[in-house]
């Protein structure tokens, strides 16, 4: 497939994933902030950090509405939910010929929906519903990609984009965790990663924060864990190159292989020793490097003959 197309698919998937993850994060943060008003300021600060957006010096009258404005609606930055949706749609326009009608209409519908909204139109009581719609559509996008596109190279690039962004988001959420955080924080962390029920099923008796964090980092079966996402990327890269698993054909496979190995053989004790935040930060940085090497391996401006 065309390199340009592969790159657009990759960024389309990443941006839709980011929009979904941020929408969930903001919704969850707003809910938890209602329950625990005393540290609501810290929770919103964490949300800014996770989103990679500089928090304002002054939160104004309402930390909540300021955060919504900055993280959800502000299209001056490339990082807000609305901006991600816009970028995803721009990429989709450029690869429209590669998409099925279903996938295209899903992205276009998400874009039209978000563009038509504003903080005022949504209103304070409509935020949760609004964010929920974004999540639903973004998840439908993933489903439609899986269910209507051929699982060929194009799909692998979508899978890579989605998995990298997912891993990045999970690592950023974990990075914000402090050892002295109360139980409501790790509950928030689980919810932000869509992991409450899966964790409860996996560890039915556990209310140990360390165990929950290890689950988010190392579960081999939970689809948003660092380990699971890294494995997805590694598999996709090997399917693209045809190189056997456990070997590498280029820098990106080498990077993904290393990440997988370090996660495959890590345990809860390792996290405790290094500290969850530091561990997540290190893996997050490696994932960013992996992303960069995928870009240079597969989307070169002038390909080598």
């Amino acid at each position: 497939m065309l390199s340009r197309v592969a790159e657009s698919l990759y960024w389309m998937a990443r941006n839709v994933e980011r929009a979904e993850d941020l929408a969930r994060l903001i919704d969850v943060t707003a809910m938890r902030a209602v329950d625990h008003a005393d540290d609501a300021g810290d929770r919103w600060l964490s949300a800014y950090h996770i989103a990679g957006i500089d928090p304002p010096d002054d939160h104004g009258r309402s930390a909540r509405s300021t955060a919504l404005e900055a993280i959800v609606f502000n299209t001056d930055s490339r990082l807000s939910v609305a901006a991600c949706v816009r970028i995803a749609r721009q990429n989709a326009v450029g690869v429209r010929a590669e998409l099925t009608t279903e996938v295209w209409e899903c992205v276009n519908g998400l874009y039209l929906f978000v563009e038509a909204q504003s903080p005022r139109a949504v209103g304070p009581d409509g935020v949760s519903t609004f964010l929920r719609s974004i999540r639903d559509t973004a998840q439908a996008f993933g489903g439609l990609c899986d269910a209507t596109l051929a699982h060929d190279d194009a799909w692998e690039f979508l899978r890579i984009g989605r998995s990298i962004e997912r891993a990045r988001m999970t690592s950023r959420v974990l990075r914000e965790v402090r050892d002295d955080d109360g139980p409501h924080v790790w509950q928030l962390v689980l919810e932000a990663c869509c992991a409450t029920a899966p964790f409860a099923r996996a560890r039915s008796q556990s209310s140990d924060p360390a165990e929950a964090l290890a689950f988010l980092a190392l579960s081999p079966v939970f689809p948003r864990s660092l380990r699971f996402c890294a494995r997805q990327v590694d598999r996709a890269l090997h399917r693209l190159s045809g190189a056997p698993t456990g070997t590498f054909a280029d820098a990106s496979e080498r990077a993904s292989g290393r990440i997988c190995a370090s996660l495959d053989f890590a345990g809860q004790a390792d996290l405790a020793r290094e500290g969850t935040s530091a561990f997540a930060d290190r893996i997050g940085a490696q994932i960013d490097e992996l992303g960069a090497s995928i870009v240079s391996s597969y989307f070169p401006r002038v390909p080598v003959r």
Partner: protein
Amino acid sequence: MERPDGFGTGLKMSSILDRYAPAPAFDEFAEADGRPRPHYEALAATLAGISAADFRHRVTTVNGVLLQRGVTFTVYADARGTERILPFDLIPRIIDAAEWAHISRGVTQRVLALNAFLKDVYGEAKVLRDGIIPRTLVYSSEHYEREAIGVRPPHDTYIHVSGIDIIRDAQGEYLVLEDNVRTPSGISYVLENRDVLKRAFPRLFEQYDPLPVDDYPQRLRSALTAAAPPSVGDPTIAILTPGIYNSAYFEHTLLARRMGVELVEGSDLIVRDNIVYMKTTRGLQRVDVLYRRVDDDYIDPLYFRADSTLGVSGLFDAYRSGNVTLANAVGTGVADDKAIYPYVPALIRYYLGEEPVLHNVETFDCSDPAQRSHVLSNMRDLVVKRTGASGGYGMLIGSHSSADERAEFADAINANPRDFIAQPIITLSAHPTVVDDTIGPRHIDLRPFALLSGDTVDVPAAAFTRVALREGSLVVNSSQGGGSKDTWILAD
């Protein structure tokens, strides 16, 4: 059907057709006495049974679907580059089998003659020696490409895809208004309109059972496959688009998807040793046929406009070496130059030895002194057109112009007479069209598409009807407030 007295009798009183009054033009729908023409009777009956509210609901639904699908075009004059849906009128235009056979014959003949003209004008130029067309007219055409002289495309096919714009005059006679043999667009609306209308009026659709349009992409693909360089067995075809900001980008994506070929931009291609390649994730892949929707001027900065970023350096050399087919061929624009248009009937007689099936609109050539002075003294009653322009731009409709505008055009004509033609103002035929909450007559045209392979012309039953939505307007171009209609062509 009992004899209705006007449209109201025997039909529900609240019908949206009640107040339809045919326009002072050839009315496609109604006979002179106001009764529906035979092939419109079933449509009339259906519309009569639909309330205004129901109809409005269908219109809203359809527009929502089109926006969601992104069936949009970009308006160049609009600085924001906004995407708009091409207004789609829910009332289909219906063409019966005999009329279509006539149109199709005329289009076939015209395309063959224009293709023969291109082969000649870039080859032996006999047509010029025989004095059929003034030499200066051809050589002064801004779309005549000297670079293309002596370059023979496979099977001498130049005009792989064309769109011939046809109107009906006050007597209902089909006339050719202009030829489009460069990169005509509109087929995507034909495909989408049909799809949408089927949902809006499924039962009516079953009653009429018009010829399908959705085989167009496969027919186009066949034509492009046949156009490949002879040495290539299973050609790789790609569509070359100027990119997402082009007004017809949606169409390019639709055709690529339906044909199952890559949609490439100039930067996706590279030419090495006169061979065109696409840059893929698995390295370079050779391209044999480019259905290019980029104008000649922009395809190769080495030969044409050096500032073009839409094309590919070396593409013209690859084309000239016969390693890639460009569809349409380079230089076809000379054949649809509006100054050449008046000579097309003569070209048909010259190359085919036949009388034209479809006549031209009477046209005054401003480069001829006598005709020019006629134009200058009758501007109020004429349409003046720039020969190099298209899309409804660069045009003066005398009856709808101010004295200043006419003076401006008169100066321009005197300065560059070769660049202008003029035609009498033809009142295009009118068709019932949704206007606010009722139905009124609006002027329409018709663009059938033709696919040429060697000496075989395929005219798919997928024709594009444009409608001037402003009351009394005769300009149907989408950039000028035009909309579109689904066009139902009936089988024998």
